[in-house]
């Protein structure tokens, strides 16, 4: 029998701290570890133009308690700023915009430190990159000069700092994430419905025995007992019978539906409800649980990747390699060990849970042993290994972006692919590509007030058919209409999306975009593309 595991440390009886109270609604999403990462972070915003989208992004980071933020912006506040930027008021007119925004943003959360730049006329924004200040992430907005943009991107690559560029004008926006290196994530928070992994086709000894002990004399069980056999045991029972009769386990869709009918016919109907809930649950679980999961492609990508010399010393890659060895040996990933709720007696359910937990621990111990045998595996926290094992099927690798990838050739290839898809879009009932919006906005990165023909002219450099592609012409006209100015709603929406991405990257939880998100405020659609 398996041991009954009780929690060795009962939680201490105390209410939440002031901080836990204030951040309650977000701690439920990224827990104390994510919050700590946010509080340790320092974000730099290089602001420009009508200046709203970056400030709206910061608002969404100051509120949840980012550690520090710095705004670099040499503009002074004018009338037009007050019509689009909420973090400026009448008293700010004529003053330095960076300082004013910092002051009004900081009001939102006394726990956050804000700083601005330049402090005096002799300072230039370029001085920020002399190495005296450390940033966790840099955001810059369009318009920007080419020289400054290149400086920021180079700094990001050299210092290993992610850089996000943001461009919002009129009803359109996009943002692009430059990750300096590969970005692996363990804590991806998959939907709870996707994580059930019960290994019903390959039960181990303890599970089989336990299930059999519940179903041995299933016919003679009392109504109460029969109605409380957990569906895991029911399915294992009927699978064993199926194998006796057919020699193999049900594998095709047809076999599985036949198997499902077989399970359903086992329910007793002489009950007050005319059926049994546990059997209903078993029937509903057949198609989802009676299958061997195979290796998810995102995990395959991690296994197939050869980390470079610098990466290979990171705990992620050492553990990933140990899990790969585990997979190669057992042809399955370590068991996550959680059991969904199901109709059962309390004691039976807890016993079942413990069987899964014990197996998960055993698998994690094997992985840990491999980790420890690695020259740099001595210091890796065993909790990190356990958490990796639990999430193994959902780990994700986002490849870093090299600036060379956004070369004119790549843009051309991408444009051709997107427009080819568009040709089939109506037939497939698919929405049209938003790539024309990206092309038109990025054509105004250095020249925000370009007219439509200038924009098309610039696009032609990378995509010669621009002028004869109606969707490109329309997007160019719509961008020209905005004359480089932001609409508050579009910038607020984009600032929300960018802030979500910043949080995902800093906390290393959930999955960030790869690597560009385009928003169309006319049709209310987004598209994510790797550019």
């Amino acid at each position, binding site marked *: 029998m398996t041991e009954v595991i009780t929690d060795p440390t009962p939680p201490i009886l105390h209410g939440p701290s002031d901080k836990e109270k204030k951040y309650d*609604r977000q701690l439920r999403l990224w827990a104390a570890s994510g919050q700590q990462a946010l509080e340790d972070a320092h974000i730099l915003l290089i602001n420009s133009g009508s200046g709203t989208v970056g400030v709206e992004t910061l608002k969404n980071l100051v509120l949840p308690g980012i550690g520090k933020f710095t705004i670099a912006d040499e503009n002074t506040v004018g009338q037009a700023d007050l019509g689009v930027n909420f973090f400026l008021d009448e008293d700010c007119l004529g003053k330095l915009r960076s300082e004013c925004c910092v002051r009004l943003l900081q009001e*939102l959360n006394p726990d956050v430190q804000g700083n601005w730049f330049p402090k005096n006329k002799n300072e230039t924004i370029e001085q920020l990159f002399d190495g005296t200040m450390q940033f966790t992430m840099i955001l810059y907005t369009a318009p920007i000069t080419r020289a400054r943009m290149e400086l920021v991107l180079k700094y990001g690559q050299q210092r290993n700092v992610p850089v996000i560029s943001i461009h919002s004008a009129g009803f359109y926006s996009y943002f692009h994430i430059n990750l300096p290196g590969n970005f692996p994530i363990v804590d991806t928070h998959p939907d709870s419905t996707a994580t059930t992994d019960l290994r019903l086709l390959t039960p181990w000894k303890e599970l089989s025995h336990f299930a059999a002990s519940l179903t041995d004399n299933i016919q003679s069980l009392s109504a109460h007992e029969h109605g409380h056999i957990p569906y895991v045991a029911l399915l294992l029972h009927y699978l064993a019978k199926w194998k006796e009769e057919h020699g193999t386990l049900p594998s095709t869709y047809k076999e599985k539906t036949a198997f499902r009918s077989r399970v359903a016919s086992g329910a007793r109907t002489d009950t007050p409800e005319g059926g049994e809930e546990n059997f209903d649950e078993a029937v509903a679980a057949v198609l989802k649980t009676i299958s061997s999961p195979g290796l998810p492609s995102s995990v395959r990508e991690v296994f197939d990747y050869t980390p470079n010399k610098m990466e290979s010393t990171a705990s992620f890659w050492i553990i990933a390699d140990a899990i790969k060895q585990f997979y190669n040996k057992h042809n399955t990933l370590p068991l996550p060990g959680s059991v969904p709720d199901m109709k059962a007696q309390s004691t039976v359910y807890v016993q079942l849970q413990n069987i899964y937990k014990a197996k998960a621990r055993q698998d994690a111990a094997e992985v840990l042993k491999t980790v420890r045998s690695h020259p740099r595996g001595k210091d890796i926290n065993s909790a990190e290994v356990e958490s990796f094992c639990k999430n193994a099927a959902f780990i994700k690798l986002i490849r870093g972006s090299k600036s060379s990838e956004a070369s004119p050739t790549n843009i051309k290839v991408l444009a051709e692919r997107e427009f080819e898809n568009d040709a089939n879009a109506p037939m497939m009932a698919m929405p049209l590509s938003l790539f024309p919006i990206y092309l038109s906005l990025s054509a105004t990165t250095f020249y925000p007030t370009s007219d439509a023909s200038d924009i098309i002219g610039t696009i032609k450099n990378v995509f010669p058919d621009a002028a004869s592609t109606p969707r490109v012409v329309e997007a160019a006209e719509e961008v020209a209409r905005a004359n480089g100015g932001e609409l508050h709603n579009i910038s607020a929406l984009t600032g929300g999306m960018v802030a979500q991405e910043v949080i995902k990257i800093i906390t290393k939880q959930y999955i960030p975009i790869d690597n560009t998100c385009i928003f169309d405020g006319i049709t209310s659609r987004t598209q994510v593309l790797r550019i």
Partner: protein
Amino acid sequence: MSQPVMVSGTISAQVPLPEERWTYLNNVLQHPGPFTEPDYDANEVADRMSKMKLLVIGAGGLGCEILKNLALSGFKDIHVIDMDTIDVSNLNRQFLFRHSDVGKSKAEVAARFVEKRVKGVKITPHNCKIQDFDDDFYMQFQMVVCGLDSIEARRWINSTLVNLVDEENPESLKPLIDGGTEGFKGQSRVVFPTMTSCIECQLDMHAPRAAVPLCTLATIPRQPEHCIEWAHIIAWEQEKPFPKLDNDDPEHITWLYKKALTRAGEFNITGVTYSLTQGVVKNIIPAIASTNAIIAASCCNEAFKIATSTNPSLGLEENYMMYSGNDSIYTYTFKHEKKADCPVCGNLARDLDVDPNLTLDEFIQSLAVRPEAQLKKPSIRSEAKTLYMQSPESLRLKTAANLEKKLGGLVVDGEEVGVSDPSLGAVDFKYKLKFSKSFAATPVATRGSTTGNGTAA
């Protein structure tokens, strides 16, 4: 018409703001784009905007954002309704509130803040429930934008706006724009009442979480949540440690937490924490500033486009945008079809399969949990007679005897019933009851003795 009360000391002399202030809005207001209707008239639009009166419902996470966004979209006359007061757990996202505002009215603090920050906008707060106002109040607005966390309030305003529509009077059709969020996910939708799919048509997209059967809580708990619900529903009622449960009182939550923890210990269940207790008891939905920013801005972008015709909006075709930021960014923008049998905006009674052997009381209970109904305190009339009325008390007493009767004895197969629930507005939900089983006309008195097989746990 409601006249805003002047607060003493405010200077009301309106100095016109320099036109330069609206440079960026004017870029799109004064220049039509490739997708703008050809008959666009910038002067007419400017005139329309200056007269427009908008209603915002909710001054919480979404509402704060909505007020800011509408003020910076050029709307000048905005009302906001919220009955809540500010709590410390609001401060991580409701950015118009400070620690010193805790305990004050959300509507009032939010309105004052935005008025002060954005010159030239008038915001009138209403610190009360939406149900406190009548049709005349709602008639004065041209559009309603909702940032609510309650399905019930959404259904109430939806049915109210649908009922307001008078085909003879185009002014009576008020577009309803609604946002909602949960964690990194959310949705925004536009309803043209009676013309397009309404909140009630879309009700099954927001099914309530399945309740745990009482017998699981009482006899076979398996999850920490079961232990908490047991403390909440059963232990509290038995022991009544305080006269009335207050979800916001830490002492009360601590009592429930300790009870749940003890019970979990008895059953070897792990995972009961204070935070989980609070989450289950208050049905807390995780909420963050960034998601609210996305959804509120999407709603206000649609409101701006509808008001100004500067670009096509969601509404007649696509009317619903889903957003998810959990795994990359995924949005799905689609047309939710209007339902002919929608109890609020449709003409046909909706078919409802029922077991005629249920008592009227059991049937009423089931209406609360059926995803397509979700009616918690319904009164029911058949074509022939009143079956059950929740109020007034005299009628309730008169009809209470029907509760024990079986449905098959009260209505015939295929009969239409009207269900009303005042918390959802003045609407009559029409259902056609289809019997799913044959009716065994057993007299009430002998019920239970025929099976002799015990009762369900």
